[in-house]
């Protein structure tokens, strides 16, 4: 659906050239939710703007739905943009227009007749759950409601692709989740391809099928979300994965525990997919002469299945311990020994 080939974007600044996007190749499939994660300044904002030519690439090609975007005439590009919608971190609604008029805006641009606009706006208001707010002005809405207007407006022209530019970064965690749920809902209902950029792994974890990690203009790692979670290669990816799998205080808690109770082994178990649901600890205690003490754990849902980490302390004889470790390895759980007394 979306193909990027050797895309580069170089900005000339007073301090010399800045490579905002450096030789990026991406292949995004029809109907998937594709996430691009990176810290600010990684070039993801520029990259998503290259998709609809708000930024022109310095070199490389962008193909969306078979169209080479950088070769389109001004008129053809405007037509193509009606099929590639965008939502924004700061919503970018017209404050001088009501909710209804904001949603009608892209339809006016596309030249729809008045009665058709009215009907379509009604459908969209229902779809995003803004019934009864049609006459309000953006200044009277909460952040989450504003983003719903943004989404309704983006969907007005029945686009094939939805670009989300940090769409939830200005929202509180609860509102973020409701907006993410809405994005999943429209992805499934309308089968539309969603490309989103974010700096929050939570967003990737919750709704994306595939993810690309960006650092200094380059895509350093890419793949199915679950695989990236299971086996992050780059250190930046590991940091991002930790954001959602390890509660922040984990490291301190474990350290403190080791100081107080230095006996036994402290092990980090990582479960992926169906494994996360199995009664592993019960099996461990029943079958081996060991005591198990659960220190901390978390199971996270992703679009491709659950993913979890568990920190446990195992105590017992040397022999029992090594049998227990063998067992853990055999059930395809990743095991990392953090402390061995």
């Amino acid at each position, binding site marked *: 659906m979306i193909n990027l080939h050797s895309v580069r974007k170089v900005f000339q600044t007073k301090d010399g050239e800045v490579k905002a996007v450096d030789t990026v190749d991406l292949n995004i499939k029809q109907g998937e939710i594709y996430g691009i994660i990176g810290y600010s300044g990684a070039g993801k904002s520029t990259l998503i703007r290259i998709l609809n030519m708000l930024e022109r690439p310095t070199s490389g090609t962008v193909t969306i739905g078979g169209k080479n975007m950088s070769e389109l005439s001004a008129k053809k590009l405007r037509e193509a943009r*009606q099929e590639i919608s965008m939502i924004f971190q700061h919503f970018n*609604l017209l404050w001088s227009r009501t909710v209804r008029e904001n949603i009608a805006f892209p339809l006016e641009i596309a030249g729809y007749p008045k009665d058709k606009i009215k009907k379509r706006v009604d459908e969209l208001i229902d779809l995003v759950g803004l019934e009864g707010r049609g006459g309000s002005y953006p200044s009277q809405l909460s952040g989450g409601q504003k983003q719903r207007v943004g989404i309704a407006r983006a969907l007005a*022209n029945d686009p094939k692709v939805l670009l989300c530019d940090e769409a939830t970064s200005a929202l509180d965690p609860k509102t973020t989740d409701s907006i993410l749920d809405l994005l999943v809902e429209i992805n499934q209902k309308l089968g539309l391809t969603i490309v989103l950029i974010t700096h929050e792994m939570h967003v990737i974890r919750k709704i994306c099928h595939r993810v690309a990690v960006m650092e200094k203009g380059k895509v350093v790692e890419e793949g199915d979300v679950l695989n990236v979670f299971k086996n992050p290669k780059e250190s930046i990816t590991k940091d991002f994965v930790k954001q959602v799998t390890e509660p922040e205080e984990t490291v301190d808690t474990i350290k403190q525990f080791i100081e107080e109770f230095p006996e036994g082994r402290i092990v980090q178990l990582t479960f992926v997919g169906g494994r996360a649901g199995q009664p592993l600890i019960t099996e461990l205690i029943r079958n081996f002469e060991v005591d198990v003490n659960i220190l901390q754990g978390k199971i996270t849902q992703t679009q491709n299945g659950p993913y979890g980490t568990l920190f446990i302390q195992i105590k017992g004889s040397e022999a029992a311990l090594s049998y227990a470790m063998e067992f853990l390895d055999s059930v395809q759980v990743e095991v990392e020994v953090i402390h061995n007394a």
Partner: protein
Amino acid sequence: MLNSWFPNVQWDVVLEATKETLYMSAISVLVTFVLGLALGLALYLTAPGNLWENKFFNSVIAIIVNVFRSIPFIILIILLIPFTRFIVGTMLGAEAALPALIVGAAPFYARMVEIALREINKGVIEAAKSMGATNTQIIFKVLIPESTPALVSGITVTAIALVSYTAMAGVVGAGGLGNLAYMEGYQRDNADVTLVSTVLILVIVFVIQWIGDRFTTALDKR
């Protein structure tokens, strides 16, 4: 009683002068609004990073605006005498004041339009572009509606400046309340005529300010 307090005031003359002032102000405000809006849009759109970015045109327009905005109005009237003669055919009467009023006020308003447009969130323009809007659609559906309150408060300030310009124009023969205050009041030493003319000009200014404020508040949905 009025006649005993204001012995030298001829009320029919005052009425005529008021009408002339209102006429000069109304026509010049209207034309200034259209011309200033066009100039202001041109200034904004040709600035770096905007829709019609063009360094050359931008500096040409900026120079014209700055020059005409900086010339003191009384001097501008004199400088424009040949131009006014050519267009209106005479240097006397309310019509003859219009070219100078407009040439003096339009650049002033153009700067205010430019400032109003610069206040618009760039993200909104980006959003319109991402929907496939043409530049014309962006101008008429985004730029102008989103800056309306500032455009209205700007034209209010400009209108008040124009009322005082008409008084100055009156001194050099354009008629109106300024002319009355100067010729009948000051020159003939009739303080009551000057007083009445001043009060009437104040009333006109207050009414304009009140109307402008009401519109600005009603239009601002931020």
